[in-house]
């Protein structure tokens, strides 16, 4: 097991380095010269050259990349002399537009994004699994059809449309909810909950639809399994047959895609955060894209990639814990 973990972790590191290299190259090639952006109004070619030299932008790609990697682990400074800015480890880059290291910008906003992701995840797991289970057990009835129609609409309605409609109905028309505010749980729990409720619902809706359909299909398949027939032949009550023998095998694959989806969300829900004006990683990214703040975009890309890659490993570990067949081949 230890050897397996070691192998997986070395794989993770390798992938992350490759992702770094790829992202770095793409931004190096594609994005506008940061020196031009920094240069400002009284710009002239001479000044640009000075900035470039100062930031090391005239170095070859590979040198810049190793400097970047070094910054990740040991921190670095941008420029020399008086105008130099410090970027402490882990340095994901420095936003000259915000005059702040990217890492700081992300960590300030990450708690908000995590709140959005966790709340939405709870909602979509509940709704998805319950909806799928109802659909499977009441297959062909109005319950089933209803659940699946809702699921289909969740998949087909773009979530910014849903977000705007929801906001208009609940906040403007019915006035059931206040406009989302930036409060913490400790400050005002009620307002906190009300502020996050809509983003949770909007995000959860699309995911819940996928999960409901998956759960339904898996449960229906599992109920056809011979071991379910065995469980019934033992005289087990219907509830036990379903919970123990149908639900557990049916939900194991759901658990694995959940890990990936959740990890992906930690990189920020761009549209939802932007629509509701939630100051999380997603909105920050959307804004950064708007004003072409390259270091921020790159930093978030790397972080999101890291979440997904690490999430993948966690999912595999959870899967080994859930499915004894895998567990024993690994051990």
């Amino acid at each position, binding site marked *: 097991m230890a*050897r*397996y973990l*070691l*192998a997986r972790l*070395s794989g993770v590191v390798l992938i992350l380095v490759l992702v770094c290299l790829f992202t770095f190259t793409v931004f190096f090639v594609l994005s506008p010269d940061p020196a031009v952006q920094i240069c400002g109004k009284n710009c002239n070619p001479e000044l640009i050259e000075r900035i470039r030299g100062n930031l090391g932008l005239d170095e070859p790609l590979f040198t810049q990349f190793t400097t970047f990697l070094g910054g990740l682990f040991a921190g670095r400074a941008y420029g020399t002399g008086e105008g130099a800015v410090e970027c402490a480890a882990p340095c994901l880059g420095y936003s000259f537009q915000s005059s702040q290291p990217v890492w700081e910008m992300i960590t300030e906003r990450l708690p908000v994004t995590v709140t959005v992701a966790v709340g939405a995840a709870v909602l979509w797991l509940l709704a998805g699994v319950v909806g799928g289970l109802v659909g499977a057990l009441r297959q062909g009835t109005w319950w089933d059809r209803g659940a699946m129609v809702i699921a289909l609409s969740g998949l087909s309605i773009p979530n910014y449309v849903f977000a705007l409609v929801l906001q208009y109905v609940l906040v403007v028309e019915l006035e059931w909810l206040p406009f989302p505010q930036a409060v913490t749980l400790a400050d005002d729990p009620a307002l906190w909950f009300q502020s996050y409720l809509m983003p949770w619902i909007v995000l959860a809706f699309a995911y819940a639809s996928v999960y409901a359909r998956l759960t339904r299909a898996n449960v229906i398949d599992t109920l056809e399994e011979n071991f379910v027939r065995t469980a019934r032949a033992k005289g087990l009550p219907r509830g036990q047959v379903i919970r123990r023998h149908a639900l557990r095998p049916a939900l194991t694959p759901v658990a694995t895609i959940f890990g990936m989806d959740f990890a992906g969300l930690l990189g920020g829900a761009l549209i939802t955060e932007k629509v509701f004006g939630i100051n999380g990683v997603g909105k920050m990214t959307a804004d950064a894209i708007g004003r072409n703040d390259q270091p921020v975009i790159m930093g978030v890309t790397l972080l999101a990639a890291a979440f997904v890659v690490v999430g993948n490993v966690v999912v595999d570990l959870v899967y080994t814990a859930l499915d004894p067949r895998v567990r024993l*081949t*690994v051990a």
Partner: protein
Amino acid sequence: MTDTAPLLTARGLVREFTLRGRAGAFGRRPVLRAVDGVDLDLYPGETLALVGESGSGKSTTARLAARLLDTSAGTVEFEGEDVTRRTGAALHRFRSGVQVVFQDPYSSLNPRHTVERIVTAPLTYQGREVPGGARAFTRALLERVGLDPDHSTRYPAQFSGGQAQRIGIARALAVGPKVVICDEAVSALDVSVQAQVINLLRRLQREEGLSYLFIAHDLAVVRQLADRVAVMHQGKVVESGDRDAVFGAPEHEYTRTLLAAVPRIRPEWEAARRARQREREATA
């Protein structure tokens, strides 16, 4: 039979499989040796049966001999030529001589293709012309395997298990092979249908001089069909010889265990039944 040269020869066949399941970053994955040094000789017009239990390596051996699977070591020769590493057109030529009939007739026939398309496919793949046109060719072929020639435009699902297996046999015969490898070809069939297919295989051999490499776990079926028998156990041939020698006086301990395990109807019941049957036939 030993005075003629064998059609299909295998020498020192070995096949290893890397087991699934992840080993560590530096660990070697465990390897399973499914076939471990098997020699076979199949002579013209004979049936050589390969028997054994699951995991004995008999099916893997069949696939190696049919070149459906590459060998880890050893050679396969057909009509005196080494075909072990043949590819492309040369492999096609080998396939014209050696065909396979599989166990599950339905899953080995494409459900969306008509019988005509299924049985002419091997010729099409090999880029050969269908002699006399597809329709006439298919009709003749179906007649040979005891199916209604008018059914050549039907789909596999419209046939029973026994009929579907006949289509599988027809497909194998389409290229005019000398050797047919039957991989548990009658195992999935009901007793009565099984008897029909066994009789068909026998008739084809009698009339056309086919050679069969017959893979089976059912010893009673093998006894009805085989001229010679090779018993496989854990990847090796533990005993081989003429059918009556292997069944009548098995030498290897494993063969004896295998034979002893076959359920039997009591001989006295059988004798009584046969006596009554003869009586009935005599009076009829």
